[in-house]
């Protein structure tokens, strides 16, 4: 589903965020991406959604080589990937319903279908009945669940999360992880960047570990170029 082949990323500042990273995620796999802050976790996720582009190497996402993608093609790649952010990235002047509906509106889905799917997504994160509220009226955990509902509302085959439990207490944190686990069980490929080892022990999933831009655990064996 996701394949990195000898991918490197050097920022314009000269900083090497990723060095020769190779790994793959199978369809319907749930994998944790760990490493200290600054190890390159965020950069790796950004490469998958093409917020950043790789300096070297090949990237394949959902059977598509995204190493060379034109500006016009990027939005369609992003529609196949649901992303959950640590800071939620919700629109605070719109209701929960409108926030979750956004990916469908953007993709031009009809009104009735949108309404149905938004309700289904909110149901999965247990927020049905709060669709008329504004994000600011919700707790941190609830806001993150809105973010998850938005990420899955158009049923993407891939779900990425960057420190989704970063600001939450352990109980809420477990709740959020359980939601991700459910989507994995529904057949979604899930990649979660986290620094909380508790989840890894609890859910017993494969782990990718980054250390100063190098993949030190879980990667594919590759001959050094």
């Amino acid at each position, binding site marked *: 589903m996701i394949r990195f082949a000898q991918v490197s990323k050097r920022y314009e500042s000269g900083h090497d965020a990723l060095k020769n990273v190779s790994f793959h995620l199978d369809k319907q796999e749930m994998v944790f991406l760990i490493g200290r802050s600054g190890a390159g976790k965020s950069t790796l996720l950004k490469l998958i*959604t093409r*917020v950043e582009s790789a300096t070297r190497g090949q990237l394949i996402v959902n059977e598509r080589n995204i190493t060379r993608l034109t*500006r*016009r093609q990027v*939005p*369609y*790649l*992003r*529609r196949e990937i649901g*992303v959950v952010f640590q800071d939620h*990235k919700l*629109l605070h002047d719109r209701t929960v319903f409108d926030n979750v509906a*956004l*990916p469908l509106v*953007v*993709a*031009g*889905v*009809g*009104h009735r279908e949108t309404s149905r799917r938004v309700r289904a997504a909110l149901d999965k994160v247990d927020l049905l009945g709060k669709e008329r509220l504004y994000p600011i009226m919700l707790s941190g955990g609830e806001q993150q669940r809105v973010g998850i509902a*938005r990420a899955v509302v158009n049923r993407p085959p891939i779900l990425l999360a960057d420190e989704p439990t970063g600001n939450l207490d352990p109980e809420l944190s477990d709740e959020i992880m359980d939601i991700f686990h459910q989507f994995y069980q529904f057949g979604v490929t899930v990649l979660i960047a986290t620094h909380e080892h508790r989840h890894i022990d609890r859910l017993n999933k494969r782990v990718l570990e980054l250390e100063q831009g190098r993949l030190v655990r879980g990667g594919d064996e590759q001959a050094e170029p």
Partner: protein
Amino acid sequence: MSYFVRHAQVLLSSLGQLARAPGSTLMTVCAIGITLALPTLLYLLVENVENVSRNWQGRAQVSVFLKLDATTQQAQNLERELAQRAEVESSQLITAQQALEEFRAQSGFGVALDILSDNPLPASILLHLNSDYNQPSAIEGLIAEINSRPEVDLAQWDMAWIKRLHVILKLVERSVALLAVLLVLAVVIIISNTIRLAIMNRRDEIEIMKLIGATERFIRRPFLYGGVLQGLLGALCAGAIVSVCVRLLRDPIAELVMLYHGDFTTSGIDLRAFAALLVAGAALGWLAARAAVGRYLSKIEPK
């Protein structure tokens, strides 16, 4: 969802955006309105002056003033003679007595005239020349010939000042066109600036939209509609300003025209000109929004 339904939705939401900030929308629309009203008013001015002068165009008039001591008989003879020439289409004799009556009636100096023992006004003959006889050199020749007669004091060609008027009008027209270009540029700058601000205000939203797979076209659309709507509302405002101005000026102009015995009514902005104004406003708004969007939207990328 059909293409048109989606566009209608964007249009409605763009209207909503404008309505949500009524103060700044009103100011922008007024600024655009005033800026568009100026060239429109000048255009109407030129149009009206052209209308007035069109009546004179093409047919030259020659006024022949006789000497004060010329008799009425001489005047009548001369008029009859001139009327038979090929160049002259029609002629009109105004005797000294007639001239005096007319002057008395119109000038308000009646009492002063009564004091005078003699009529100070000469007899005159008004010649309307044939329309196919309008070469300046030929007319000058005719005038020179008439001037050489002993009973004639002065023959002059009334087209001269009309010619001058036309040259002046051409100059004014060109100035109006230049001014219009500058003001149109101002409108584009006003609108593209408000669109730029709108883009900056919605930076986060644009970033998020891009992250969840919105195409450039989708993100651009509401801003383009915003520009078109502002241009359209500005043009409506300009139309209102122009009609108020024309209404305020109509009576004084009518008074002025009456003093010159003209039969002329000020023409305001007609339906076609109004439609053109609206189309121009919308087009300028679109152009301005397009420029702003092209310049600033692509710079906003998720990080």
